């Protein structure tokens, strides 16, 4: 499917992640203008705008596409807005790709931005007794890190991973992100510092849980024909596969914000499969490649331990061998398949609708050879993986 269904990435743009306390539209605008400049295009060249929504910023957040279109200046551009929690960015990209591949437009802007509150993500306000996200806080006080911690403890029990292994993930990512001007945290940390930071949800410590951040990312994407016709100062990177898969019933891993897994006790139900395993697979299949072809990956390290799960989920190693891959240095820059060269969520924190897009920005930077101090030598193929609340898979395969 790769050849005929690929689209080109002409431009990338980001607003630095941080805690800036300003309106999310401002960050989005900076990212959009960055992507347009990078592509050598102007807003009036754009035929379609695909916004990734945020739910914390009220009315304009729910209609991110139109909000950014207005901020850039109404010019009649066709629009789409989508929400898929942390996977929103991949869906916005998939929507833009569908428009391009259907021949409905040649060039599109994909954009996501967020302003987040301090501390734990909390559910939408009001008494919402039909909302599992509200109920899990009300009935159990189960925050997002509580779920990350359940996965971490499970790894320790099943595979013998240690708290030190998890700390090593943070140490690696803190080094990776040091020179990334868009990262929020650019400070090297030691294993001891990680282990001695306050426990949030046993066994995870404060330095192992991703922060909530303000940030924005944008892409200018186009048909192959448009890309050829317009030339580019950048080395062309293509989107070879996008996965926006949902789980397959029964999903037997406990997922945020649920109280239980699906039951596998019904008659005629399939054997349980892992949702996270299926996410990158969908993108690999579209791209006609496999994990053995991957030179680098950006994965959703909501926690240090979760990064190890992703190594296995995207096929970099067998189940249970994630910690070994890390200990062997394979996922560090200079290793066999560096993971989270951007510094990951560990250095960025979460700006939900921008997150899947900023992962793509990092891979594009690497495949162009523009990553400077953190460059992965000879990188040709990269993959992103991410998962949004309520069953949203997100993975993008990018090739040079």
């Amino acid at each position, binding site marked *: 499917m790769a050849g005929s269904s690929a689209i080109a990435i002409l431009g990338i743009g980001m607003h630095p992640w941080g805690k800036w306390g300003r309106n999310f539209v401002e960050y989005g605008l900076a990212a959009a203008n960055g992507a347009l400049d990078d592509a050598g295009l102007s807003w009036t060249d754009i035929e379609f705008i695909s916004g990734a929504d945020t739910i914390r910023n009220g009315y304009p957040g729910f209609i991110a596409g139109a909000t950014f279109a207005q901020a850039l200046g109404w010019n009649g551009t066709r629009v789409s807005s989508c929400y898929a929690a942390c996977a929103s960015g991949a869906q916005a990209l998939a929507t833009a790709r569908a428009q391009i591949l259907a021949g409905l437009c040649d060039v599109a802007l994909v954009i996501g931005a967020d302003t987040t509150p301090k501390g734990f993500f909390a559910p939408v306000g009001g008494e919402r007794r039909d909302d599992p996200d509200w109920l899990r806080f009300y009935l159990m006080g189960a925050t997002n890190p509580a779920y990350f911690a359940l996965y971490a403890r*499970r790894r320790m029990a099943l595979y013998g991973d240690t708290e030190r292994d998890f700390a090593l993930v943070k140490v690696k990512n803190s080094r990776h992100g040091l020179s990334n001007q868009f990262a929020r945290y650019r400070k090297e940390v030691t294993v001891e510092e990680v282990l001695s930071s306050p426990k949030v949800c046993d066994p995870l410590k404060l330095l192992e849980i991703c922060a909530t951040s303000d940030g924005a990312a944008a892409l200018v994407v186009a048909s192959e024909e448009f890309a050829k016709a317009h030339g580019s100062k950048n080395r062309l990177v293509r989107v070879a596969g996008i996965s926006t898969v949902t789980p397959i019933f029964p999903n037997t891993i406990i997922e945020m914000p649920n109280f239980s897994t699906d039951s596998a006790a019904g008659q005629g139900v399939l054997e349980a499969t892992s949702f996270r395993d299926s996410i990158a697979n969908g993108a690999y299949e579209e791209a006609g490649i496999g994990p053995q072809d991957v030179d680098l990956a950006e994965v959703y390290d909501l926690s240090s331990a979760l990064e190890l799960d992703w190594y296995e989920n995207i096929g970099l190693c067998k189940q249970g061998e994630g910690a070994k891959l890390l200990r062997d240095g394979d996922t560090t820059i200079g290793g066999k398949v560096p993971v989270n060269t951007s510094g990951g969520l560990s250095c960025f924190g979460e700006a939900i609708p921008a997150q899947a897009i900023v992962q793509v920005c990092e891979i594009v930077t690497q495949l162009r050879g523009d990553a400077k101090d953190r460059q992965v030598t000879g990188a040709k193929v990269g993959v992103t993986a991410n998962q949004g609340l309520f069953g949203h898979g997100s993975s993008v395969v990018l090739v040079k």
Partner: protein
Amino acid sequence: MLSQVGLAKIRVPAVEGWFSIDESEPYLLGSKCTKCGTIYFPQEGTFCKNPRCRSETFEQVRLSNRGKIWSYTDAQYQPPPPYVAVDPFEPFAIVAVELIQEKLIVLGQVVRGVTVDDLRVGMEVELTIDTLYEDEDKVYLVWKFRPVNGPETLRR
């Protein structure tokens, strides 16, 4: 420990239809698809989520009140509202419990006094009905878990 005032308060479930209100016989209330037998917690009453089943009829079932710990953690920081925390905040443990017969994993808090140091993956736990929080005239109840072979003091 319940105060004298606490004893006088009306005890009500924090959420309706999720668990037994008879505290001497604690169980979770699930539903079972009458066609394919898939079990749901909390109860599903509208449509079966098994993609190969189009049933819309369910019967209420009691879930097993014992299971094995799939994983566990705790909350060392106070969760944001709508969680109602005691003041000062007391950390509490959370378990993911595998119900063997129902072939599902269910979450719940662990009773007060049991910490992560007392828990292990694979350990058998049992369900109990316990206080979630109190206000001036009511005690709000929720399901919790406790180790089956825990110290007697933890089993009341």
